[in-house]
């Protein structure tokens, strides 16, 4: 091809879209301030006003994925142990697994935990209401904080109630003769599963209290959003974990 017909790459970029008029904004070779900062060609990472938030969310999601594997391991151990047994003197296959009737208070606890997840979500949503966020941006008071704080406190109270309820359930089991060191594997699993899940909730309550403190002390609205948002997602996940663990303890004994 003769040199006169060679088109510069920019010309190719600029070619007619077929509908007349200017090419779309992001295709204009001279648009966007010219410093390469026009949000195009950016598949890498996430950028923008919510970059920090999405980074922290991602961290929480990864951490919870690892945590999920922890509980998956416990649950698979539950099933393996349940099917384990031995042959007695008469060649019968016997197992030492005796189904455990869970204390009825667990149903109330479950309801409380679900309720706390709703309050946590209410608290989280307060921080993303556009008008309130704008007011906080402009320094016209902190309406989002005022709205979110009661919901967070409610979540802390409900979460603590759940833990108290779990403690009562343990007490009832001990009275009924199921201690951790009793020879029954189903009671080992009951204590272990409720115990490790409870430990996660203790951490969650500490996180909620931390978020509450952060709500009043953090200066930047993004950071206030992050602490409440991440804690709320953690809390929701623990609620979902509990539903599965509770179903396991009730239905698969």
């Amino acid at each position, binding site marked *: 091809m003769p040199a006169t017909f060679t088109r510069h790459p920019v010309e190719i970029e600029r070619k007619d879209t077929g509908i007349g008029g200017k090419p779309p904004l992001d295709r204009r070779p001279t648009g966007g301030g010219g410093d390469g900062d026009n949000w195009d060609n950016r598949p890498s990472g996430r950028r923008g006003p919510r970059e920090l938030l999405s980074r922290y969310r991602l961290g929480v999601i990864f951490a919870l994925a*690892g945590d999920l*594997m922890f509980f998956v391991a416990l649950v698979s151990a539950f099933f393996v142990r349940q099917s384990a047994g*031995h042959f007695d003197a008469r060649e019968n296959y016997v197992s030492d697994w005796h189904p455990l009737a869970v204390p009825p208070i667990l149903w109330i606890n479950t309801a409380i935990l679900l309720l706390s997840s709703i309050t946590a979500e209410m608290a989280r949503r307060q921080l993303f209401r556009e008008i309130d966020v704008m007011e906080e941006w402009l320094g016209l008071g902190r309406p989002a904080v005022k709205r979110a704080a009661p919901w967070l406190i409610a979540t802390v109270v409900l979460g603590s109630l759940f833990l108290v309820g779990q403690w009562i359930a343990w007490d009832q089991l001990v009275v009924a003769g199921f201690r951790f060191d009793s020879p029954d594997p189903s009671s080992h699993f009951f204590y272990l599963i409720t115990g490790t899940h409870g430990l996660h909730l203790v951490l969650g309550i500490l996180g909620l209290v931390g978020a509450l403190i952060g709500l009043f002390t953090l200066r930047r609205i993004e950071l206030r959003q992050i602490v409440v948002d991440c804690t709320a997602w953690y809390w929701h996940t623990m609620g979902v974990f509990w539903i599965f663990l509770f179903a396991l303890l009730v239905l698969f004994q």
Partner: protein
Amino acid sequence: MMKRIFTTSHRVIGAHYLQLSLTAVAVGTLLSLLMRIHRVWPDTPLPFYGILKPEDYLALVTMHGTLMIFFVLTTAPQSGFANLVLPAQIGARQMAFPRLNAAAFWLAVAAFVILISAFFVPQGAPISGWTSYPPFSAIAAAGPGQGAGMDLWLVSIGVFCLSSWLSSVNMLATILTERCPGMTWTRLPMTVWAWLVTSILTLLVFSVLLAAIVLLYSDRHFGSSFFVPLGDIVNGHIVGRGDGSPLLWLHLFWFFGHPEVYIAVLPGMGLATSLFANFTRRNVPGYRTMAAMLVLIGLLGLAVWGHHMFVSGMNPYAGTAFALTTMAIAVPSTVEVLGWLTLLSYGGLRLKTPMLFALGFLSFFIAGGLTGPILAQPALDSYLHNTFFVVAHFHLVMAMAGVFSIFAGVYYWFPLLTGRLMNETLGKVHFWISLIAAYGTFFPMHLTGLAGEPRHYERLSGPIASFSAILPAERGITYSALLLAAAQLLFLWNFISSARRGQRAESNPWQATTLEWAPEGFAVRVEHGPYDYSVPSGEAKFIPQWEAASKQE
């Protein structure tokens, strides 16, 4: 001073991780030398200690394995190098969560201190191996070291699990959110792909190990019976009270333990790819395939754990399934090796020390990898499993390949740490002695293993005369191991003297293309692939990733 120690700077943390690994590898090597000496001269008293008792030998085995697996092969390639260069390679100024990262490092240090303290408690270190199979590990009376020593082991590894968990959360978030503009998935250096896969594996499998440790700890202290079988008798007392299943521990442990092998070796594979491209001045052939194979190895690695359990009483049908998945993993590994061989077959190799160590890595990966499909056969494994053949296999494919890739990384990235180059002559001498001595140490173990030499036996002499024929080979292995350890003194000397008065390095001493070698304060916008070597245009014949696109025309 405090600021320097409790820093959140990823590069300093990376250097600290490497120091931790160096300490661990020094202790671990010392333990292995004691083992080798004891196998050849079992009745010679050691200075400051006296005669090594059989349980002491098992304690050495346990602590050697634990130190090397967790604190060397997991820590150095994954946490050490990734902290050192990963943010730079993706054009990030810092990690996604610097404080989390620092916390992970200090947890790792705590885990190390707790583990080492097991030597100094009454009855000493645990003796049930780095795999800690119950019921041996579940009952304090089962042997010396199984009381306080075993508890410390469990706590240490539990803390290490938390550390790895935090560290991998940080790595993943960093790789996903902190890449600079233009750093697309196909422009990532292969090391970043490897760290991505190992971080996912770490996240998924260390949690399972933590759960297993919680269960075992509960068996030891809270009267549960997850792992102790019914009627288990220790010292004449019945200790098994329920239908616990030792196999359950094996499943949980190896679900962690096998991916752990890939956590140890995948960063080395990524680094080898980068080094082969750099020192042959060629673009990596089939970049997308190579990256996909790294991911595939990681995924398949999650489904092969049963091949450690062929002789454990697992259902034989399960054994067949695991044999199939294990052989399947040979496919992506072979693709990787063929990719490297293609790259090398172009010729024009620049045999600098980092390249030599990368070639050493490849050599061990092939030599050790070839015995993998053999051991993946349940029928063959039932003979070989408890022999030194397995010791030879994993020391070549994981330990030596892993360590050689660590050396390659240290020689390669040394200028980033100190601004100087390591001495080439000393480096080459170090390489050749290490290579020959490493093969001299581990290759004969295949033969002694085929001859039936069992693992975990404190001595071969005694009433059994049938092993007398392999005693000369044993002596050869020990001499070779001593030589291998001595060669590392050369490395230490080189490291220290080069750090002080080595040759000053230029800003990009290896003419590399990846971003960790970019000049300071460069406004990064990536327009090129990670391995643009041998480009026909331009004088330098390679295009670094930090170079602007316009120069390409």
